[in-house]
């Protein structure tokens, strides 16, 4: 992926989150205070507005900017989580104008480790990490980078769906106890939107290459 394609992935998240705004809010009404879709749409739209004006070709700087703007726009708990992800991912792709498959694997590994460091959750806690950690597991395997990146998308979806059968132990939803059963976690859902949207852009960049 070149910087232009990387940037259009980051900018594209705004529309994705707007389209899913009401759905994410609905999920959050069962488990939280019902604003997750608003938060994600607002945060990514601010990222879009800033990145569109940037002439930057350093993928690291674009990622860093996305993380900072997102954090500054939303605060909340999702702000620090994703800011930590983007800042730690950005370090791996510093000064790169083009991201090879290996770079992308490194980026997402560092990204997910950044989110986990900040959030301190594990698989099964019914959080955004139920989507991210299966991706990390796949990326750590010794397989061809392209295969890993693509496989991870399916695992992410399974991880997201598995949150329906989990009892929340983190954040506001943890107060629900068993009442959180049966509902898909909104954070895990928006995490899957992010990664699956990356995969769409990633595949497009491959087609362009060929």
């Amino acid at each position, binding site marked *: 992926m070149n910087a232009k394609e990387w940037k259009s992935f980051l900018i594209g998240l705004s529309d994705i989150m707007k389209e899913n705004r009401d759905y994410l809010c609905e999920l959050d009404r069962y488990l939280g205070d019902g604003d997750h879709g608003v938060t994600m749409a607002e945060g990514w739209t601010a990222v879009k507005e800033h990145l569109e004006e940037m002439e930057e070709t350093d993928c690291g700087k674009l990622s860093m900017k996305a993380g900072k703007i997102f954090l500054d726009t939303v605060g909340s708990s999702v702000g620090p989580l994703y800011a930590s992800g983007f800042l730690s991912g950005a370090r791996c792709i510093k000064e790169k104008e083009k991201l090879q498959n290996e770079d992308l694997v490194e980026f997402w590994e560092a990204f997910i480790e950044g989110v986990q460091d900040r959030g301190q959750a594990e698989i099964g806690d019914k959080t955004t990490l139920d989507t991210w950690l299966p991706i990390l597991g796949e990326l750590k395997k010794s397989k061809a980078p392209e295969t890993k990146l693509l496989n991870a998308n399916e695992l992410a979806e399974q991880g997201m769906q598995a949150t329906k059968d989990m009892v929340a132990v983190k954040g506001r939803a943890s*107060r629900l106890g068993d009442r959180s059963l049966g509902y898909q976690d909104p954070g895990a859902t928006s995490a899957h939107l992010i990664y699956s949207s990356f995969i769409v852009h990633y595949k497009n960049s491959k087609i362009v290459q060929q």
Partner: protein
Amino acid sequence: MKKLINNPDHVVDDMIKGFLKAHSSSISKVEAHHRAIIRKYSKEKKKVSVIIGGGSGHEPAFMGYVGKGMADGVAVGNIFASPPPTPIAEAIKAVDTKKESILIYGNYQGDIMNFSMAADLVEMEEDIEVKQIIVKDDVASAPKGESEQRRGISGEFFVIKVAGAASEMGKDIDEVYRLTEKANENVCSMGVGLTPCSLPQTGEPSFQLEDDEMEIGLGHHGEPGVEKGKLQSSSKVAERIVHDILADMSLVKDDEVTVLVNGLGSTTRMELYIFFDEVEKLLSEKGIRIYRSYVGDYSTSLEMGGCSLSLLKMDSELKPMIDYFAYSPMYEQK
């Protein structure tokens, strides 16, 4: 639900604009960030600063409590969402006369992350000493012994008040911290929800409660409480809440408490005073004396219906703090 607003996406910034204009003689915004507000400050007086903050929608908490004898600065988040680190750090820097700052916020994951990041920032970049007080007064949110899991609700008013008084008295940071933490450890709260609120941006109620239902122990963002059931009388609800709070507080006959009956947004003063009367009866039956009383909206949840009760166990150190004057846009005490 109907709301008198303009663009739902701009409610927080629109509110701040009006707030700054209405109280321009005592507060001002921080140039570096539009979501950071400070009290008009005399740079001459060197003192420990008190910084508060949290999501919007709880007004008067938190921005209404910036003023003399209260907080020096506030960071304002989106509705029910913690502010990011930048406005918190900018508020700390803007009132930094002594390189010492106390941060006070409720025990929520988002607030902990953002305030801690802000603390790291100013400690590293500005060499400001920061101590954090995390309010966890809601006894309904986790059992005794797991108080680290408890969320912060209306009792934060007392915590802010004690910190503001202690800092205005010129005490050093360790002493301000000790007294504030003492208030934090000696305040217990619990609420009841009757009607949900709706977020301006979605218009949907943030949780479900039938017309004839109430939820005891409901949190300030609609988090579930300990018991959902048919609406009961004020005296029955007071009985349950006072019982649960006292079970936590180890009060004995002749102990003194300061009482706060806090409205959640759409509950009338009539209802709050009826509730206070019940609380007073229950306390006096047990021989617990009321040192001072507060009745009104101190920490709301938009237009949520219901109230919360906070009891602060008093001693000779906390009394002068609670009695100290306060002058802020949404709370004054002589």
